[in-house]
């Protein structure tokens, strides 16, 4: 399968990349790892006249950790996230979730920036970033701005990113407490039928902080604020967990596709949420 023709640019800094985006408007796209973009280009589902490769821009690569604050350059690959021991020490959920993305070859090229900026509700990182309450840094013609991950997604493949903006980094505070990212998929390499992430803390037998998010269960990643409100400040027992799971499933809005009908997906959602909650509690 051959994509339609395009011109290729490889700028060596972010300003040059932004100015190319501004010049070409919606005829241009940036390419990071290319493992979402190249397949849709091959299927000719998108018509890109100008392709801007970000791999020559060193300033948007790598992982920086200062105290409790983590900043990850958009061009950092999944395998770099998995292999970074320092990151694993303070945010082990990143490795747990990254290992569930695609397969080894894809993780070698796939980047965190591409995964979150593409706006595909099936991608795992957007859900994870809801969970971590991450902030995205976007660079455009009008300068740099921060957008909360929880305010970034508008619909499937629609985000608040402007045409001339490029996502350059992702930052979040190191999470504390128990964690789990549970993904149900038909096979390795497939997107989630349903996936859920949980981070929570238990102090004096009570849930003192919590975050819950879902992947591929709506046209955007879902942050389960209602479920979080239910569990906060409560003693965790089966009754509370049932209410939390119900609230999460209630907030999901899956569509029927080759992975199953809506009823099935809501059923699987309930299971992955329960598994994630259970494992996160075990790890507190």
């Amino acid at each position, binding site marked *: 399968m051959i994509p339609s023709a395009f011109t290729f640019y490889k700028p060596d800094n972010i300003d040059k990349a932004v100015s190319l985006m501004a010049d070409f408007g919606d005829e241009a796209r940036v390419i990071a790892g290319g493992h979402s973009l190249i397949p849709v280009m091959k299927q000719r589902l998108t018509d890109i006249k100008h392709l801007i490769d970000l791999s020559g821009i060193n300033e948007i690569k790598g992982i920086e950790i200062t105290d409790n604050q983590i900043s990850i350059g958009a061009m950092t690959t999944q395998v770099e996230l998995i292999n970074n021991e320092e990151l694993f020490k303070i945010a082990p959920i990143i490795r747990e979730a990254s290992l569930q993305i695609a397969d080894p070859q894809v993780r070698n*090229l796939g980047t965190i920036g591409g995964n979150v900026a593409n706006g595909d509700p099936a991608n795992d990182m957007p859900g994870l970033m809801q969970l971590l309450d991450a902030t995205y840094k976007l660079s455009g013609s009008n300068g740099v701005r921060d957008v909360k991950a929880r305010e970034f997604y508008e619909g499937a493949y629609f985000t608040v990113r402007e045409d001339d903006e490029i996502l350059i980094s992702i930052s979040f505070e190191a999470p504390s407490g128990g964690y789990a990212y549970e993904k149900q998929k038909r096979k390795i390499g497939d997107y989630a039928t349903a996936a859920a992430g949980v981070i929570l803390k238990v102090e004096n037998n009570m849930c003192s902080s919590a975050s819950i998010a879902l992947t591929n269960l709506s046209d955007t990643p879902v942050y389960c604020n209602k479920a979080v409100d239910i569990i906060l400040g409560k003693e965790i027992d089966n009754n509370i967990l049932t209410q939390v799971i119900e609230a999460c499933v209630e907030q999901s809005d899956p569509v029927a596709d080759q992975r199953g009908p809506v009823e099935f997906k809501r059923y699987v959602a309930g299971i992955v949420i329960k598994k994630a909650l259970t494992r996160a509690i075990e790890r507190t």
Partner: protein
Amino acid sequence: MEKINVTMTVNGKEEKLSVEPRTLLVHALREHLDYTGAHIGCSSSHCGACTIDMNGKSVKSCTVFAPQAEGSEILTVEGIGSPDKLHAIQEMFKEHHGLQCGYCTPGMIMRSYRFLQENPNPTEEEVRFGISGNLCRCTGYQNIVKSIMAAADKIRDEANVEKKEIA
């Protein structure tokens, strides 16, 4: 469409080519440079038949545009062994019948080659997870896994012999 110059090192040899930017790396290797070891299976980044080594990492060459590989070090199955001198992994695939139709084999071998450097002493489960980006529709994977486990042993033994010889 205007062509673009790409230079890369393939199996230790510098190669220069002039291609349309949309040329996929697997087509550049097979059709422009005649390295037909990398196969085109699904052309949708699922099957792994096109797996090669790029800058020391396994990648699916159907999902890389040739200009993205500018300046890179490429290793294909042609670069790791020859019919007269098979690589340990190739020998073990032969020994343990790790193939039937052979279509996925170059991708399997190249993934195994890199995987055994990432993890020289893997468990069976780690092997299966390590080659999870490579599909085989003939073998059911049993003999592929056996071949890779045997290759891991053989490579370790050879390394030990070398160490002793040096000592």
